[in-house]
């Protein structure tokens, strides 16, 4: 007969197995999605997939040869969006981080700026899109629907990420470095930029890469602001296609080639995001070793 102690032990073992099972359960959707994307997305990968623009919609069973090439215009559009969004978010985010760390230190207003960034990072991306829409419709209605406007919304999403990661990176530089530089009569701004920032650069870069990875996958604000064109970008004030919206297109379209293209776009996005994450992790590891040498 099992006594109480035995039962408790068995129960504990059972819970260990159960919790192990939850890890597996949690990982199933991840591998499932990656598997489906690799299978269905990989099958449309070709040189033409990356270079051709989005073709006309069609369905395979109509007998017409249905092209699944490609997402060239979407790639170009996403690149434009990310470049522009970085143009706004990186200087402002980095500047705010430097201000908080160099001039705020531990003071209350430095924490207020960090808190504002944290609060901003919780804003849903669709709300960011509506915000830019409401803003531009009043002041610059001509570019409300454009790659520029989409990039503004992505900038709003990227800004808090850049700011917080830059702030963390700057704060890892020990205070003794700052004191050593100041004691040599190096001016404050040179200390901040040429010594502290240079030392924190890998962390800052990582933050930028991570924020780009996040923005690359955003679709909600683009749905509102930068939607509908299948062609490549000609100028900043026109609507362009983007990778994330290509997926949305595949989801809402009846044409089978669009669904296939969407899988390809999904795989491409996953690869890009994973790639950016891995690169940023490598950058961080290399610096950890560099700073770790000696005292």
């Amino acid at each position: 007969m099992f006594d109480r102690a035995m039962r408790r032990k068995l129960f504990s073992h059972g819970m260990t197995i159960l919790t192990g099972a939850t890890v597996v359960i949690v990982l199933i959707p991840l591998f499932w999605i990656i598997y489906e994307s690799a299978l269905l997305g990989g099958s449309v990968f070709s040189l033409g997939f990356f270079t051709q623009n989005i073709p006309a919609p069609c369905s395979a069973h109509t007998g017409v040869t249905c092209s699944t090439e490609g997402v060239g215009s979407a790639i170009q559009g996403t690149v434009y969006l990310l470049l522009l969004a970085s143009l706004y978010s990186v200087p402002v985010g980095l500047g705010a981080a430097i201000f908080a760390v160099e001039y705020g230190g531990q003071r209350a207003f430095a924490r207020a700026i960090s808190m504002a960034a944290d609060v901003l990072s919780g804003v849903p991306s669709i709300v960011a899109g509506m915000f830019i829409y409401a803003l531009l419709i009043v002041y610059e209605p001509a570019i409300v629907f454009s790659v520029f406007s989409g990039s503004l919304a992505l900038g709003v999403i990227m800004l808090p990420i850049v700011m917080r990661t830059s702030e963390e990176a700057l704060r890892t530089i020990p205070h003794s470095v700052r004191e050593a530089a100041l004691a040599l009569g190096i001016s404050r701004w040179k200390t901040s930029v040429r010594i502290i920032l240079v030392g924190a650069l890998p962390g800052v870069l990582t933050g930028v890469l991570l924020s780009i990875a996040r923005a690359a996958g955003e679709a909600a604000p683009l749905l509102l602001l930068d939607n509908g064109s299948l062609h490549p970008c000609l100028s900043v004030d026109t609507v362009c296609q983007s990778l994330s919206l290509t997926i949305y297109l595949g989801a809402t379209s009846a044409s089978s080639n669009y669904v296939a293209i969407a899988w390809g776009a999904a795989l491409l996005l996953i690869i890009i995001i994973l790639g950016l994450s891995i690169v940023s992790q490598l950058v961080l590891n290399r610096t950890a070793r560099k700073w770790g040498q000696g005292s």
Partner: protein
Amino acid sequence: MTRGNPFPTFPSRKTRAVSKWGDRIFLVLTAVAAAGLIAVLVALVVVLYHGSLPTINALGLNFLYTLTWNPQGNVYGIVPFAIGTLLTSAIALLLAIPLSIGAAIFLTQHAPTWLREPVAQVIQLLAAIPSVVYGFWGLIVLVPIMRYDVDPILANVLGWTGWFSGRHIGLDVLTASVVLSIMTVPTITAISKDSILAVPRSQKEAALSLGATDWEVSRRAVIPYARSGIIAGIVLGLGRALGETMAVTLVIGNANVIPTSLFSQGQTIASLIANDFFEQETPLELPALLEAALFLLIITLAVNIVARWIQARFQAGRAVGAE
């Protein structure tokens, strides 16, 4: 011995002037950036409020408790979507919380140390997948499985509860909740894991020395101590779920009504905006959508602030009680 050096005029007058101005300009530039960040936050609220004034003036507080959304009839009520949002988020949390905490417990208490971080990183990949990919996968892969395999079982087994009534086409509140729960898991797991790791060893050792089993140590000593941190993680996950758009809008069925069962098609506030944005048939529709966006903004901000406040208290409490 002379004090001569190669730099008798070092630093030059020019360098001195430049560094003074350099300091001033630098301070101004960075201060402007910091102000800009705060300005964006403030502008979000102000601009959305300004844009929704037409409906705020026309409907007043009715917006908050009207049960229907009918642009043609100029009836705009946020209730169906608030319910949709709350329902999907609640079910998502119901599914995600046990899984996330279970995973966190396994990773921190049972898994070998070298395995912990790599597996945790892999779980974080779930957060890296864009929500539109989740929506797309959900629509193409999950919806048919729900419709043909899962929903019938649920209807049979749990139909008596009344929650699983009606035709199930797979595009419904339930599927949206499932997708949402997958997306919420990484947040809760990461924060729970960190909270559990922050529990001092002494707590665990005290319980072990009293003869508690591993599970009892987790349940009675470790988790209660990490409770605030875990709750903060849950609230943070909730904040993300509330604002999720793309994954939800593709699988929820997009019906602007109050759902009566988990198999009903529904709509969240976020999916409403995404779905109805291009309709804009009547003049009040856009301001109404802006008001919905403002409503969503305020809710998510409030939830986020609560989560961070709990986190801050948890850190403070730990600092006080830590060895």
